[in-house]
């Protein structure tokens, strides 16, 4: 089901929890990165919730939250504070979580969610900052008894929460919102936003109402979706379940349900009777924040150009929009491409080449785009050699590989490989051999397929190890085959 059944309306709101890219935790100096740490080795008296300790706000975490608020067009109120959210569960050492209740860092923003070219506005209610919880594992312990084990490493890591208004109408729209949010978070560098690592965790509130009935307050919260696909599937399941319930005349029970990937269903975790009464109150250990205009302006000035602007720029200079879209998934690669263009490279050639050839080499070598060892002007130089015909496409790819391996500049590598073959007498024998060996391609060529010419050229390049002059080869083959087929 992708939208509400006839006679019903669907109301969806999302809560996205985002781990921020800080070095240290939210309120203490423990390392925030616990990914490869042994349990309970990133812990100090503050995040262990010992009596008498004093938490202190991580300025960077506040900045990253405000940056997120700015790209979501939020208002950044002048006054913000932290509050204690009280609940008794062993994933909190203190039996309360420091969060923000009525004065969050960012309010009233929006994100325009685009599906198939049409955009729908999803309002953002708030973006606030809190601390992550400890990790619990439920096991059969060494003595055979069931037990829960606590690893406190994650506890106290900065966690930003983005809360939407209930403006979302379909599972597809929810997933698209998530993907766009993830793209923005990565673009401005506030989070890795990797769902499989728990750096982005999205909960959904969903309710189904008869179309002729006002939307009420009851809703079901679903948790435990570890991918956008799971988010979309869980919502589709829940919408169908609630629609069935309504058809039978049943009332919606407010509850929390967990998505179960294996069975493809949601299961009750908690009903309203057990719902939390968090008894929020202002955190006495943390003085309030006065967020000055100067601070907000300074942060705004740090924001990179946003993807839509960069895309418009590159496509207006002739770069294929599919390649541009591909490029913009990776901020570091986009920055690199812009540096290559800055160094004088032709825009469409640079974009296409970086998205395809350069990325192929990066994937083969397991490198991320922020670890490209080639200075941008060197790549621009290679593209220049290719543009003026000094190297063929085949050879350019080879040269790029060697640049990665040796760190030598393109010109030196090309020079060491010996001169390009453009003499017709040297190429003619090879061209004839290729034509002889590829009758199918030849007949395709005569049938008017341009790709056949590309194929035959590629064979010549292979035999000459990329050293043949592409223009000369193409002319020779066409001449041998008696002109355009």
């Amino acid at each position, binding site marked *: 089901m992708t939208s509400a059944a006839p006679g019903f309306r669907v109301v969806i709101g999302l809560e996205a929890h985002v781990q921020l890219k*800080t*070095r*240290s935790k939210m309120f203490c*100096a*423990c*390392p925030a990165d616990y990914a490869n740490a*042994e*349990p*309970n*080795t*990133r*812990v*100090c*008296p503050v995040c*262990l919730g010992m009596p008498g300790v004093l938490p*202190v*706000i*991580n*300025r*960077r*975490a*506040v900045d990253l939250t405000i940056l997120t608020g700015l790209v979501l067009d939020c208002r950044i109120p002048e006054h913000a*504070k932290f509050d204690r959210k*009280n609940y*008794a*569960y*062993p*994933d909190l050492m203190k039996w309360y979580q420091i969060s923000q209740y009525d*004065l969050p860092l960012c309010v009233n923003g929006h994100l325009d969610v685009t599906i198939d070219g049409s955009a729908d506005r999803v309002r953002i209610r708030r973006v606030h900052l809190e601390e992550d*919880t400890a990790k*619990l*594992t*439920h*096991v059969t*312990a*060494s003595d055979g008894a*069931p*037990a*829960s*084990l*606590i*690893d*406190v490493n994650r506890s106290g890591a900065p966690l930003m929460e983005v809360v939407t208004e209930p403006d979302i109408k379909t599972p597809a729209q929810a997933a698209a919102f998530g993907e766009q949010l993830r793209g923005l978070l990565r673009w401005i560098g506030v989070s890795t936003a990797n769902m499989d690592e728990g750096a982005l965790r999205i909960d959904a509130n969903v309710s189904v109402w008869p179309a002729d009935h006002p939307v009420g307050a009851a809703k079901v919260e679903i*948790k435990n979706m570890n991918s956008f696909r799971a988010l979309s599937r869980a919502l589709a399941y829940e919408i169908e379940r609630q629609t069935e319930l309504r058809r039978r005349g049943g009332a919606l029970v407010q509850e929390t349900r967990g998505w179960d990937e294996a069975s493809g269903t949601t299961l009750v*975790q*908690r009903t309203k009777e057990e719902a939390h*009464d968090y*008894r929020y109150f*202002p955190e*006495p250990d*943390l*003085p*309030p*924040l*006065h967020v000055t205009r100067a601070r907000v302006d300074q942060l705004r000035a740090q924001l990179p150009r946003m993807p839509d602007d960069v895309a418009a720029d590159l496509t207006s200079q002739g770069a294929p929009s599919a390649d541009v879209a591909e490029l913009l998934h990776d901020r570091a690669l986009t920055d690199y491409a812009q540096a290559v263009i800055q160094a004088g490279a032709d825009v469409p050639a640079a974009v296409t080449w970086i998205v395809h050839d350069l990325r192929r080499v990066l994937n083969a070598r397991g490198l991320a785009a922020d670890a490209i060892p080639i200075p941008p002007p060197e790549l621009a130089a290679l593209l220049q050699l290719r543009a003026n015909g000094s190297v063929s496409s085949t050879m350019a790819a080879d040269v790029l590989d060697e640049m990665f391996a040796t760190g030598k500049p393109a010109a030196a590598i090309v020079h060491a490989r010996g001169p390009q073959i453009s003499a017709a007498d040297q190429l003619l024998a090879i061209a004839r051999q290729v034509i002889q060996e590829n009758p199918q391609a030849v007949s395709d060529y005569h049938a008017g397929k341009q790709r056949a010419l590309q194929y035959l050229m590629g064979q010549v390049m292979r035999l000459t190890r990329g050293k043949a002059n592409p223009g000369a080869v193409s002319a020779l083959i066409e001449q041998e085959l008696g002109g355009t087929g």
Partner: protein
Amino acid sequence: MSIERQQVDHVAALARLDLTDAERERLRGELGRILEAFQVLDTLDTSGIPPTAQVIPLGNVERGDTVADPLPRGQVLRNAPRVEDGQIRVPPVLDES
């Protein structure tokens, strides 16, 4: 100010307190008297006073994003009731996270 028995039970449940009937009855009275004492505040005119979340005259106490050494794990686990695989072992709890 009179407190219902139900309210005492609710607050006790939230705080995970296991109370005897006698304690519940005693606390019902004590909580009522505490709330009565606070009701004095209702007699004040606070219309000209901005909402106050903090009485300490401080603001913007923030630290730079720098890392310091955590505690050695032996110390972290020293107060744990039971330890298993370097983790704090507690009685099994339902996963609510």
